[in-house]
């Protein structure tokens, strides 16, 4: 499976580039300017599209963790590590673009409501995961611990996703958008953005997995010599 993922990088990379161009054209020319917020509302497309690849990355970390615990094969561990790293990149971008949108609309860069706080905790969980991987490099115990940690980390994702509903109106954050429920031009632009981001996610993850595999091969060679 790993070989197949690595081989797919070129195709997903080219597709991501094309999808980003289409998406940017749609943001400028197709998506309407929102009546109340004005042009700043267009940050919506860059911000919301960050979350599917972020969550997917963290879910891949759990899948890789389960695979590693079940089979003890290092390729599963490489999938887990790559998912966390690329997922964290998209989570960071979501956490950066959110405040840029919030400041002109809410008047605040950040509010400590349920959605924002839980997302920040999720971000810290995966920062800690990567630190753990960095400090305890290469041992089987570290891989086992990281697998369990990665599986437990995903438990927070449904809570983050439904945090707006759980807050029951006591949050400034808008509810989770559904493309079909958006005005003409907005839904299709959001879908185009999500597609571009997901293709970029697959490309970056495939490249990261390849690097982890090359690092393992180098270590093996260094051990042998």
């Amino acid at each position, binding site marked *: 499976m790993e070989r197949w993922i690595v081989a797919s990088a070129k195709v997903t990379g080219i597709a991501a580039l094309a999808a980003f161009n289409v998406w940017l054209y749609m943001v400028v020319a197709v998506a309407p300017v929102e009546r109340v917020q004005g042009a700043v509302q267009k*940050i919506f497309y860059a911000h919301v599209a960050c979350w599917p690849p972020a969550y997917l990355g963290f879910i891949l970390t759990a899948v890789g963790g389960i695979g590693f615990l079940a089979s003890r094969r290092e390729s599963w561990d490489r999938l887990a590590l790559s998912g966390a790293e690329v997922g964290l990149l998209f989570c960071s971008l979501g956490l950066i673009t959110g405040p840029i949108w919030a400041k002109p609309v809410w008047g605040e860069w950040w509010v400590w409501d349920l959605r924002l706080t839980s997302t920040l905790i999720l971000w810290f969980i995966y920062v800690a995961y990567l630190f753990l991987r960095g400090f305890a490099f290469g041992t089987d115990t570290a891989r086992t611990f990281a697998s369990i940690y990665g599986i437990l980390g995903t438990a927070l994702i449904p809570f983050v996703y439904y945090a707006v509903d759980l807050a029951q109106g006591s949050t400034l954050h808008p509810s989770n958008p559904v493309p079909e429920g958006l005005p003409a031009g907005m839904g299709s632009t959001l879908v185009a953005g999500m597609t571009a981001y997901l293709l970029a996610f697959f490309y970056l993850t495939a490249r990261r997995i390849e*690097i982890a595999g090359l690092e393992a091969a180098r270590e093996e060679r260094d051990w042998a010599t």
Partner: protein
Amino acid sequence: MIVAYLIVGNALVAYALYLEWRRLKLRRRLRDG
């Protein structure tokens, strides 16, 4: 608005280039022994 798009675009391109650099460096090192 443009700032948000510039941050996202630059971050993704920078990370992709960083991965490519690491990948090529590792491949070269493995090939050359």
